[in-house]
């Protein structure tokens, strides 16, 4: 099963490499990983998505918790949550294709953020599934370049991941 794990960790050099190292060392896979500082400069927040059965996920969270740099973590997929990912995508857009692609962007509520004679650069946010669906809708042949940010997530409602 796909899981989204949010980790609050010390904003220290080496912290990120310990987390990434843990995954390769224990043979866990990382689907995506994002990390940045938080409003508290001493903490950074990481969101990682991984795939595994319950046993594996339990091991992953236990081992993450064991890292000295990890302050707190939560498996967002255990409760109601919101996930978002940002995608920037360059597609070939000339002639009749231009209108077609514009329509597709509108349907997916994306934005065209840069334009040239033959290329559109599009920005799209949403769940990873939605981004993949857009990718399929436009069709591989038209796609020139894709960059995805990886998943960020947050729990719904009053629940807060903090100190």
């Amino acid at each position, binding site marked *: 099963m796909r899981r989204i794990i949010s980790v609050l960790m010390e904003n220290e050099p080496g912290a990120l490499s310990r987390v990434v190292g843990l995954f390769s060392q224990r043979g866990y896979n990382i689907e995506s990983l994002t990390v940045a500082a938080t409003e508290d400069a001493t903490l950074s927040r990481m969101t990682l998505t991984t795939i595994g059965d319950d046993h594996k996920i339990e091991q992953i969270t236990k081992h993450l*918790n064991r890292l000295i740099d990890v302050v707190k973590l939560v498996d967002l997929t255990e409760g109601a949550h919101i996930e978002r990912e940002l995608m920037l995508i360059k597609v070939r857009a000339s002639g009749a294709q231009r209108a077609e692609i514009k329509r597709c962007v509108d349907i997916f509520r994306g934005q065209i953020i840069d334009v040239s004679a033959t290329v559109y650069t599009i920005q799209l946010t949403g769940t990873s599934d939605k981004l993949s669906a857009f990718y399929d809708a436009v069709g591989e042949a038209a796609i020139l370049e894709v960059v995805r940010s990886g998943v960020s997530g947050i729990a719904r409602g009053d629940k807060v991941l903090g100190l």
Partner: protein
Amino acid sequence: MELLSGGDMLMRALADEGVECIFGYPGGAALHIYDALFRQDKIKHILVRHEQAATHAADAFSRSTGKIGVVLVTSGPGATNAITGIATAYMDSIPMVVISGQVASERIGEDAFQETDMVGISRPIVKHSFLVKDARDIPAIIKKAFYIAGTGRPGPVVVDIPKDITSPATTFEYHYPDKVKLRSYTPAQRGHTGQIKKAVQLLLQAKRPIIYAGGGVIQGNASPQLIELARKLNAPVTNTLMGLGAYPATDRQFVGMLGMHGTVEANYAMHHSDVILAVGARFDDRVTNTTSKFCPSAKIIHIDIDPASISKTVPADVPIVGPVESVLNEMLENLKHADEKQDAAALQEWWSQIEEWRSRYGLLVKPRYIAGDKIMPQEVISTLWEVTKGDAYITSDVGQHQMFAAQYYPFDKPRRWINSGGLGTMGFGLPAAMGVQYAFRDATVACVTGEGSIQMCIQELSTCKQYNLPVKIICLNNQALGMVKQWQDMQYSSRYSESLYEDSLPDFVKLMDAYGHVGIRVTKREELKSKMEECFAMKDKTVFMDIHVEPKEHVYPMHIAPNGSMRDMWLNKTERT
């Protein structure tokens, strides 16, 4: 407030932490530190001959004393040489602080002379590591390093210090913090009361209980509690290779070591049990054999300080996260007030079953090997036990001799059996013996080794000379990498691929003479005991006993793998359970 340089602060912080000795080896990036060491008199330093030995010695110092061993090495090759010892300590959860010199801060990343990324290289084999960026942080980092190494599930911590940080040119205010608080690190202080209650109930209802105790009992100083609990429950006890001594081996309730080369009675008792109390043990693959066939009718209670150890390979029915000592104390307290009574008849039956297994298979009941003209390795260990009156510190290397030592030297006290269980590091034995002997000057310390393993750190004989460390080296010389050869006998039709040395072994007696020690060769059975007595009578001498043993002997019993359960064992070359 006093003004000190980075190097002096480091020494002062170590002294304030209560460090008495450091095992180490100097070099360029560590020279400011070594100069600071020279200018103080609280901390002693033991100059080894190879950094690997420094880590093993410090590790064994920890294992035998319960204090935290300290290592000091230089950057680059000094640091990489320390890696094997750090990994050894990590696998066995041994607290240790390793200080490594690093190239100057402004050189880092330039492939400077003797630069290696020590924090990076050691990352998967440390509990935590620090790269010091500001000399002012030294006291706080040292405080944290010792706190992290010694609490929770212990382990090695690396502190990498660039050369400029320890420079005598700049001084800073020194203050050693008396407390550490890490918001991201709070080891469990006690177990969950409800779970503990459940565990006690389960144990009282058990008809065929067994206690399976590992190195965590020793690290957690919980032997007295374990003994009391076992006596109260009248349950059989088995120890892992790492746990030997946690429960007295000569006690009636002890059924021997379990696992690959454990006793048949211990493995049978595990397999047929209905409740297993696992304490500070981690269900290692060398214990469980095939996990899907592991103890089919047993409910498992698992006490461990590290939540990640619980249900890792075998699911626990009653997991309890906490320090073993406090959890066992709480269990004992619970037991006092429990209304439930044990099923005495069932226990009686369980014990008579175990006694039957023991009399049939027990290693110490009667010899389980066929003695010929040659000295049998098992007899060497039994003789060692007799001559040292069962009261020595025994360190070991890795191979058949290690297993014979574990099987035939009954350890009655914790911290007496010092071996590399998790990593299985050949070369561990001699430096480990040095670390123990340094900690206990008057104790009898013997290193059980093989002619293969001893050559991996033999240079340390010179260190023994310098510091008058009268360790006794008991070499079971079978002229081969015996454990490798045994597997080649069993699985590769005796094709001895690179497990023999042809006539290239050194004359160990002459070698000892060259190092200024005593060497004794034993080739005749009838001389074994008298020569060994002679060896141990030389209280202030380092002595090497080169004992020529039967080279064909295998270690038995042995789990049948792959796909075997715990009760499937080879009893000798032809018979199995």
